[in-house]
């Protein structure tokens, strides 16, 4: 009786076909190179997308604060310029509300207390515009525009009966160094007129974005 181990098997152990090996190595290299390319693409695309989402969220939230709240304190236009940084803790452009007959001078940024949502105060807009050179950085802080190279441009336009005219412009418009520009548009009333508030938040070319 023959056992399996005694069968004569033609063995080719350890052989490598050169053509197969070459094709496999080339394929492997192609996959590696493609993977590196995809990885760099994904990292760059994700980063740019994160920046855009960040700018969009900041733009939306800052515009909401401006047109839905009076700021803190609510009468912040009466604060002297020297005390502006230490006293004003929130910027809002809506007219100050009267609550149960009392002027809400201590601020009523909570929505329940503010009946003047979207009704803007022209004095507050003028203050922002007149002191923008001195206070621009503080405006950015108060509006939460704090990312690297982030800037803003606030445009307030009034309806003249046939079109919207720009009444005020505060901040820096996007220039050639801008990479992303995100804009939030809100509709409001100013002195009884239809008003359009456009807040552009944008970022300058910095670091990896410039490469």
């Amino acid at each position: 009786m023959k056992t399996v181990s005694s069968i004569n098997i033609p063995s080719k152990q350890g052989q490598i076909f050169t053509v197969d090996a070459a094709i496999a190595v080339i394929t492997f290299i192609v996959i590696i190179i493609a993977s590196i390319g995809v990885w760099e693409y994904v990292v760059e695309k994700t980063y740019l997308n994160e920046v855009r989402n960040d700018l969009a969220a900041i733009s939306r939230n800052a515009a909401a604060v401006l047109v839905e709240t009076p700021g803190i304190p609510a009468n912040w236009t009466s604060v002297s310029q020297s005390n502006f940084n230490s006293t004003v803790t929130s910027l809002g452009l809506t007219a100050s509300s009267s609550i149960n007959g009392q002027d809400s001078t201590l601020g009523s940024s909570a929505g329940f207390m503010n009946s003047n949502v979207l009704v803007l105060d022209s004095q507050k807009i003028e203050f922002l515009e007149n002191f923008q050179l001195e206070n621009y950085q503080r405006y950015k802080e108060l509006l939460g525009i704090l990312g690297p190279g982030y800037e803003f441009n606030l445009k307030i336009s009034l309806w003249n009966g046939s079109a919207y005219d720009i009444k005020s412009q505060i901040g820096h418009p996007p220039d050639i160094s801008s990479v992303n520009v995100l804009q939030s548009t809100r509709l409001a009333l100013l002195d009884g007129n239809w008003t359009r508030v456009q807040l552009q938040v944008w970022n300058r070319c910095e670091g990896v974005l410039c490469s």
Partner: protein
Amino acid sequence: LFLKKGVIFTLDAVIALLAASVIILSIYLLIGNLSDISDGRDLQQIGQDALTVLEKDGSLAYAIQTKSNVTVTTYLDELPAQYCARIQLLDSNQDIQFSAVSGGCGNADRLAVSRRIFISERKTYMAEIETWIKEN
């Protein structure tokens, strides 16, 4: 039995290349199609703002009283260029009392709807606005 220990099969490499291509293509398509999720929210916001402004400046009440849609239509026509809107005013029986739509707008691909209650001549009305992105 015929053993081929240690041989590299070309077929394996080709399958690996195909699999890698599919994965890479999928990643490109997924990343490339990342869209701005804020579109829907912005549509809703513009609609709410428009209703608030038109209610606070008295245009909605005026439209109910005069049955004239000139003011409201003008306002809708002057929305930011990419937006279209349609407003309906309904009474407490849900009957349409008034309707206005911005000009130059086709059908809506994706709608956002906002509503606001207001009072005119001691009657309660509901304003409903549909907003959508204008097709190019």
